[in-house]
């Protein structure tokens, strides 16, 4: 079930954008903690405003409380419902617009550090198209977020944009992650192009994060097609060089392939290219298309029904499996995959954008299926159907 991670509220007494952890506990230990925001649901408000004073802000769905806090000069945010603001969540709140983004949920296996909107590629199928903006403030917010997390989660992703554009700030971010959450696996999505700079790669490796993987996309075994897909001349050479630099510096790499009309024709050859040139890759992920961002714009150049590329995918997966390369299939529904490929399919879609169709309800393998992206609910393979195996 998809979860809403952003909303707009009304704010009072806030002067700048800030990042806080949420609590519903106004007990003594929580007092005087300026990095905490107190969530007060309707009907649980207290007449005594004193206890709210020491929090960075109070988030409530009570208009009455909100007005009283505003009048008393206590920072406050009024939201439609406090239901999505649970204990331990970390949110970023913007004054003025009242924009609230949930950036960390302790119970979720899909938390990510969003590093930047900027990117040096412009992939045809980008689900999160790059923006030329100055979002350098995200670095401090992310470091703040890391410092607010209470228990090390198993996994945190890093995404963008292109995280390596942060340059030295990326090193700081990795240092912070290692310092605060050494037990958390860090998985960074990067196009690997800036890894062409061995000195930079070595600095990342020198952070010596105990569990860090760079997940790097490679869309073809030849430059022309890869460069076309990422819409950047020279990208293929830079990524190939980058993969070698990563290996040389001792960084673990994963290779990611998005499946669409441009990458499918040479998929088997791409698998061969990966095995012969990057046998050090710790994982290869074949990924179904997410119908977001540029995908809608480039639909005709990208869309191919998964059913129509299943032979190619099966061949590529088996090629790598026989060679003992760890391989997965992401974002594809079990009803589109032959049973022989089911063991490679992962429940890869982040919970906040994960949906199932009505016809999925009676499906006997739904619990094991990735489901769909929220963005695909109205536009997906015609072959999705209910299964009744087991």
């Amino acid at each position, binding site marked *: 079930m998809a979860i809403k991670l952003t909303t707009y509220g009304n704010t009072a007494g806030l002067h700048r954008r800030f990042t806080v952890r949420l609590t519903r506990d106004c007990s003594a230990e929580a007092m005087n903690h300026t990095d905490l925001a107190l969530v007060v649901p309707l009907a649980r408000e207290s007449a005594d405003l004193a206890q709210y004073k020491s929090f960075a802000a109070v988030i409530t769905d009570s208009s009455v409380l909100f007005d009283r806090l505003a009048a008393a000069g206590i920072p406050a945010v009024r939201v439609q419902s406090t239901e999505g603001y649970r204990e331990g969540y970390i949110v970023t709140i913007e004054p003025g617009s009242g924009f609230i983004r949930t950036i960390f949920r302790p119970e979720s296996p899909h938390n990510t550090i969003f590093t930047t909107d900027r990117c040096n590629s412009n992939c045809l199928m980008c689900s999160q198209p790059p923006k030329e903006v100055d979002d350098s403030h995200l670095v401090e917010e992310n470091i703040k977020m890391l410092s607010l997390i209470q228990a090390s989660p198993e996994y945190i992703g890093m995404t963008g944009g292109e995280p390596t554009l942060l340059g030295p700030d990326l090193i700081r971010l990795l240092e912070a992650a290692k310092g605060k959450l050494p037990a958390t696996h860090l998985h960074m999505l990067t196009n690997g192009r800036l890894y062409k700079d061995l000195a930079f790669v070595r600095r990342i490796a020198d952070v010596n994060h105990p569990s860090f993987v760079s997940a790097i996309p490679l869309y073809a075994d*030849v430059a*022309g097609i890869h*460069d076309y897909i990422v819409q950047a001349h020279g990208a293929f050479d830079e990524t190939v060089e980058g993969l070698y630099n990563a290996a040389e510096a001792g960084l673990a790499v994963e290779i990611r392939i998005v499946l669409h009309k441009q990458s499918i024709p040479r998929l088997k050859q791409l698998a061969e290219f990966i095995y012969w040139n990057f046998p050090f890759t710790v994982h290869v992920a074949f990924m179904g298309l997410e119908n977001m961002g540029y995908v809608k714009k480039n639909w005709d150049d990208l869309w191919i029904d998964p059913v129509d590329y299943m032979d190619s995918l099966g061949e590529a997966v088996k090629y790598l499996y026989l060679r*003992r390369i760890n391989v997965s299939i992401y974002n594809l529904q079990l009803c589109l995959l032959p049973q022989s490929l089911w063991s490679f399919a992962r429940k890869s879609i982040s919970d906040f954008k994960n949906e199932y169709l009505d016809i999925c309800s009676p499906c006997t393998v739904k619990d*094991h299926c990735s489901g769909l992206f929220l963005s695909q609910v109205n536009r997906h393979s015609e072959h999705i159907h209910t299964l009744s195996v087991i």
Partner: protein
Amino acid sequence: MAHKEFHMIQEYLSPVTTYSLLPFRFMRLDRDSVLLTNDWGEFKIIAPDTFERFIHNQLNTTGTDYLDLRAKYFVSDTRSSDHLRVMASKYRTKKSFLEGFTKLHLFVVTLRCDHSCPYCQVSRQSEDKTRYDMTSEMAHRAVDLMLRVPASAVTCEFQGGEALLNFPLVQDIVLYATERNRSIGKFIDFVICTNLSNLTDAHLLFFKEHNIKISSSLDGPAFLHDHNRPCSRGSSHAFVEHNLRRAQEALGRENVSVLMTTTKKSLAYPREIIDEYVRLNLGSIVLRSLSPFGFATKTMKTIGYSSEEFVEFYKKALDYIIELNRRGHSFAEGYATLILSKILTPFPNSYVDLQSPAGAGFSAVAYNYDGEVYASDEARMLAEMNDTSFRLGNVLDNSYEQIFFGERMQAIAAASCNEALAGCADCALQPYCGADPVYHYATQGDMFGNRASSGFCKKNMAIIRHIFELLRQANSETEEIFWSWIHQASREEMKLPKVSWLSN
């Protein structure tokens, strides 16, 4: 925010007007196909007319054949870098078996033996221990040499004669090497080659205690084995069958292996030989041809055969092994596995056979019972025929440097790279094949050899071509079988896994 313009594919993948061929070798496989290979063993098979267009700069540079060749580094163009670093890395990886230098050290602890196999040139039926046994002093100097090589892991293999007839020296060597190695810290893999006819519980206890593996010989069912390997003390086959079980039980199945040698009589029994291996719970076989030199002409007539006869036998046996695998047995053939891994993987392998540079001296060295050092097991056999061409020195008289980098070794090295041998240098099968200066010296009187009349060349070209043919015909199941051999895995492990939550 407005997005950037998207550009058409033609902007990235336009035809290039000219391209350059990168170094590769080629040969006709059959009427309809040409095999192209490069130095590290990537290959591509194309049609003859495609090949013609390719080499004459006329191939469509946006077509599949061209892009395939580009991705395998057969051609260079202006669209992207040639990734010299990638090519260098692949070449280095393929040749990385050379890292650490000579790893296999053979200790001929005695020439005495209770068998009189016609294909063995070296064993002696003698009670005279002083004449044919290695001395403790020689053995210790040989161990010192072994521990000098840079490799972090070495194999110390006891050979004979029958090594167990000089068990006290085997113990001596193991204990001395272990003690000396305490401050050096190499991994030493001990292997004892034995016909198993004298195996005692005391032997097994010592092997178990020091992680010593057993390598024995089994040429097939009793009628064939006993014909090939006559023993003065009874049926050799009966000894092997009985003691193989004991050894497997005592040391674990994975620590006991056997070797098979093909004689003229074997040629008629490919299935029987393999069935015998399966019956005795042996997971694989290496179909080895005779080292056909150093015999008297009379012996050669009795047990010898031509390369063609061996290849016929090999193909039949291999077909049968594949059939067994199809029926669900996990059973591998070692020589095919070696060649398959060279063709299908970017990795090196540690077998001494079929390497370039050849194994003699580079990967293996033999310390003979009399302290003489030879470049390989075959080289010391040649020495028993009074030809010491491959003698590198003596453990008592010569230093590590004199032995491994002396004039003799340099002369051998010059003839050890098939990249630089006439007839090999431009052969498309070169990356999958090897060089064998000892073989060519023994059969042709010249370490470099003449490929046109070389039995080594005939045999290996035929076998490698056959394996290419099998690969081209391979269905999904055959592929799984081949990969199970390469990974030393079972048939089941190579099948796409089932999800745990699905019943049956």
